């Protein structure tokens, strides 16, 4: 790796620092057929540096919108957002934010390593092709895709494609990783594999990760804190710290703390679903 890339911050899951993402009184209105719809309301959220938090809630409750606000893709109608002390748009320009979506959206005419290097080369006109490829190769190793560099997206399984997408965002070396249901299109076993992979990456790199998911298991297994969102009005109805001990692995699912958190989250989600219907 060249000196041009900053080293991952020295930080482990146990040492958590100052707020990294701060939302205060954030509201988002969408105007649809001249009618103003409040999609998000009164969101206060603090994500500490190096933390792993999940946003969970019924579909259509605005959790993806909230993530897009953090990514600077949607401007809030009210309230303020800062990422690493900057407005999201500036944080994005400073390459502090990496994004991963549900669909891997790899370019089908580029192989794995070209895809992994693509965003970095677009973001940084000054980076040489060789340096970008070195960086991309290192990130493919990190996500467990060593040896698959030359494969075309059509030759990769869904899980592997999503790993390439993750490597592509990690290649930017962002401080914050915003993930919108990244494993939503994968089968159950692949999801668990990807969760383990993500947990390992988080422990090794100390990135701040915000994960949008509708999987209770995923949220509990991965996060240190889960924000439960309710619809109408879309807001955070409860913040649940997860006291599941580290290191987390396959056995964590049987831990009483896991069961307790899962049970609590299920209750909250059922409640918020019921409210939505009325």
């Amino acid at each position, binding site marked *: 790796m060249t000196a041009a890339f900053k080293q991952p911050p020295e930080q482990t899951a146990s040492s958590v620092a100052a707020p990294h993402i701060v939302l205060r009184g954030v509201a988002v209105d969408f105007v649809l057929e001249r009618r103003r719809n409040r999609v998000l309301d009164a969101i206060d959220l603090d994500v500490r540096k190096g933390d792993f938090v999940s946003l969970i809630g019924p579909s259509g409750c605005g959790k993806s919108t909230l993530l*897009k606000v953090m*990514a*600077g*893709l949607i401007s809030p109608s009210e309230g303020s957002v800062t990422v690493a002390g900057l407005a999201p748009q500036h944080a*994005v*320009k400073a*390459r502090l*934010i990496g*994004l991963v*979506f*549900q*669909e891997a*959206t790899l*370019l*089908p*005419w580029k192989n794995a390593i070209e895809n992994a290097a693509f*965003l970095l080369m*677009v*973001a940084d006109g000054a980076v040489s092709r060789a340096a970008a490829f070195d960086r991309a190769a290192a990130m493919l190793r990190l996500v467990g895709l060593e040896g*698959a560099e030359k*494969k*075309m997206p*059509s*030759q*990769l*399984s869904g*899980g*592997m494609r999503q790993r390439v997408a993750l490597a592509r965002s990690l290649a*930017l070396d962002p401080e914050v990783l915003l993930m*919108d249901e990244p494993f939503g299109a994968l089968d159950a076993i*692949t999801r668990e594999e990807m969760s383990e992979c993500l947990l390992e990456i988080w422990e090794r790199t100390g990135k701040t990760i915000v994960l949008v998911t509708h999987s209770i298991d995923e949220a509990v297994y991965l996060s240190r804190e889960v924000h439960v969102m309710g619809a109408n009005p879309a807001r955070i109805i409860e913040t649940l710290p997860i006291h599941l001990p580290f290191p987390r692995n396959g056995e964590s699912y049987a831990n009483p703390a896991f069961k307790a958190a899962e049970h609590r989250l299920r209750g909250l989600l059922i409640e918020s679903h019921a409210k939505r219907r009325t």
Partner: protein
Amino acid sequence: MSNDTVVRSRDTTVLESSHDGGQWLSALGLAAVLVVLWEAAIHVFQVSSFVVPAPTAIVRSLLENWTALAWAALATTQEILFGFCLSAIVGVLIALVIVRFERFGRALYPLIVLFQNVPKVALAPIFILWFGYGLAPKILLIIVIAFFPVAIDMLAGLQSVEPSFVALMRSVGASKGKILLQVRIPHSLPYLMAGLKVAITFSVIGAIVGEFAGANAGLGYVIQFASTQLDTPLIFAALVVVSVLGLACYAIVERAERLMVPWAPKFESTHA
């Protein structure tokens, strides 16, 4: 896991290609049988050659008139070549303009769809009136017939890039132009090739129709000339040449597609 998917896709490709080979063989066999039946029917029912010629009569006419047919084919090929290339350029430019200049595009798109509803063949006499009997009116006719599938397919390709990928590009500060150049255009190439395959068949039709409307060379001209002479075998001979020419043009475009967009799902096996 990856091995599984790769092997599976290979298996299906093998299956499909052997299936295709079999289809070709049986199609040729069926054609041969039909030609023999045709020949037999002409002789059994003693059908006059100027109503329906026997296959042997058509072959004889082909051999007798091969220089005239070759010259005519050359003229028609020229029209197809220029017409097709220009329709491709016009179609691509229209699609790019619509995507790049959204506001203008919103105004232009309905006009193009409206224009598509004009029966283009009916324009042939007007083009003859304006440009005479030469190459120009044929090329113009081909363009107005063949640009549309190119423009529409290319446009669909440019606009079908995953919105989340566009968001990703925007998130790293990529400009609209950069997204167009590095993502939308390469993404649209398989769509463009599909449009070009339609355009090449339209181009052949356009050339023949253009020659019907008024010409002094070309296969369409030969067909019209032969019909005034009641030389039906020559009409059929010219039709055979037109068909072969059309098939050859299509094969070339398809070959280009395989070379240019090997990642198109259909040709997954080429880089496996």
